């Protein structure tokens, strides 16, 4: 079942993601496509994740299409102006890519080309708006397209915030993105399920599919690092303790992820598993959560 149909069917939707490597070796991507095919409803392909230059999302999405996997083409606003963005949307369309996830993108100074010129010609909301114009058969300036696009466009939301202003602002941004055409949301990684529940109580009014983000923990150090450096990630102390005390850290990390999946299943319409190097273990997590 394609990603869009899975969303519309009302089933519990499972997506995961692949981060292309720096270079032309695609053997791992081909292998992951084989491993994940049939296990998930869609695979996001990140776009120069963390502002680190890599193989492009468009090319990898195209490979996934050929391998029979439905990709979610992630597009950031950081690197391309409106001409390049729209052209890539047309390219994606003819390559059989049907789903988009639109984000602003980490600032260049956070990546490995710190002297790069940032673009942000369009912001996230303007890009969502542009996609919908193209779906209607027009480019951003109103010129008619010879053959329109038909994208399902999604966006991200940060469900847990450290200030009330940020929390309210995220809900407002969510509402705005929906008003411009966003049809699903994937979230920042959730560890504090109660906080996520508070968010979902507010977000329920929008009646839109939300796929809760899950990042399996590999170590206590990783959890502490994310708490310190990654916006919107709050790993509770007891989870860090579990990782510290774990005899088999991999097994414990996977078990915590599976537990999160089971709990989030009660609260959201799906999950988005960001395995960050553990992509091959995604089927194991799903099995542990009785979703495999």
């Amino acid at each position: 079942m394609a990603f869009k149909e899975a969303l519309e069917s009302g089933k519990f939707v499972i997506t995961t993601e692949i981060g292309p490597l720096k270079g032309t070796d695609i053997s791992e991507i081909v292998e992951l496509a084989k491993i994940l095919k049939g296990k998930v409803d869609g695979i996001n392909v990140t776009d120069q994740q963390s502002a680190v230059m890599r193989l492009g999302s468009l090319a990898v999405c195209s490979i996934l299409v050929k391998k029979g996997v439905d990709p979610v083409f992630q597009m950031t606003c950081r690197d391309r102006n409106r001409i390049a963005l729209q052209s890539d949307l047309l390219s994606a369309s003819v390559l059989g890519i049907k789903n988009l996830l639109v984000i602003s993108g980490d600032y260049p100074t956070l990546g490995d080309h710190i002297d790069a010129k940032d673009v942000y010609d369009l912001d996230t909301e303007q890009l969502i708006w542009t996609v919908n114009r193209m779906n209607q058969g027009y480019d951003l300036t109103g010129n008619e397209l010879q053959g329109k696009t038909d994208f399902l466009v999604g966006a991200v939301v940060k469900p847990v915030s450290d200030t009330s202003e940020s929390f309210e602002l995220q809900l407002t941004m969510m509402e705005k993105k929906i008003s411009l055409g966003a049809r699903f949301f994937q979230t920042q990684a959730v560890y504090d399920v109660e906080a996520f529940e508070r968010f979902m109580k507010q977000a329920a009014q929008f009646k839109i599919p939300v796929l809760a983000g899950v990042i399996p923990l590999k170590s206590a150090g990783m959890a502490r690092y994310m708490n310190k450096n990654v916006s919107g990630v709050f790993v509770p102390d007891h989870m860090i303790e579990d990782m510290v005390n774990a005899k088999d850290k991999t097994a414990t990390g996977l078990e915590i992820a599976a537990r999160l999946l089971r709990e989030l299943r009660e609260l959201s319409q799906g999950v988005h598993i960001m395995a960050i190097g553990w992509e091959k273990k995604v089927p194991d997590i799903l099995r542990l959560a009785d979703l495999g």
Partner: protein
Amino acid sequence: MLLSEQKPFDEILGYLEHEEKVFILGCDGCAQASQTGGLPQVLEMKERLKKEGKTVTGYHVADFLCQKALVASRLRPLEDTIMVSDSLLVLSCGIGIQCAAAMVKKPIHPGCNTINLGGSRGEWKGYERCLECGDCLLEYTGGICPLTVCSKGLRNGACGGASNAKCEVSRDRPCGWETIYTRLKETGRVDMIKRFIPPKEWNKMRPRSEMLSTPIWALEQRDGSREERPG
């Protein structure tokens, strides 16, 4: 106000590698305020170059190097000294350096880098900055400019990068959109954020053609003509 900082001394020495005699030109305007090209810095540069074996033929600190007519009148009495020099080292902003280059038929070396003030104009020291974008959005953003207050210059609202109300780009910097949100809330206009701001017409940010043909511009062009250059 243009803010400048002196280039690393080794970089300046590199410019002068194949030259012996240099004339130093400073500016009593912004470069003086930046402490990069006022009299003390010009004298200091003179001593440092002498230590490196260079001959400093002379120096001058002009009131405003950005005014070409003034530069021409001030440099004329020094013409002989300038013309025996291999080059001029100019300690000023980029405009001053370009004015000097337009007025003197000698190689010109920039002694300073002009630093981006990020939309700050005049002597204003606060957070309020203007990029002169030609299509003001302040109506929708609580009177706080999203182009300058947000690191990414996002027009429609926050990204997800803030932590404890600080920006992902620099934790020393407040999240611009949380600042805007707070202001809108204080003034009962929070719904302004829901209004869609369409793609920006960056074309309006470019100087209009008439801005490049004002009387002052024309005067500067005439004063900068080749015939009137010293030498």
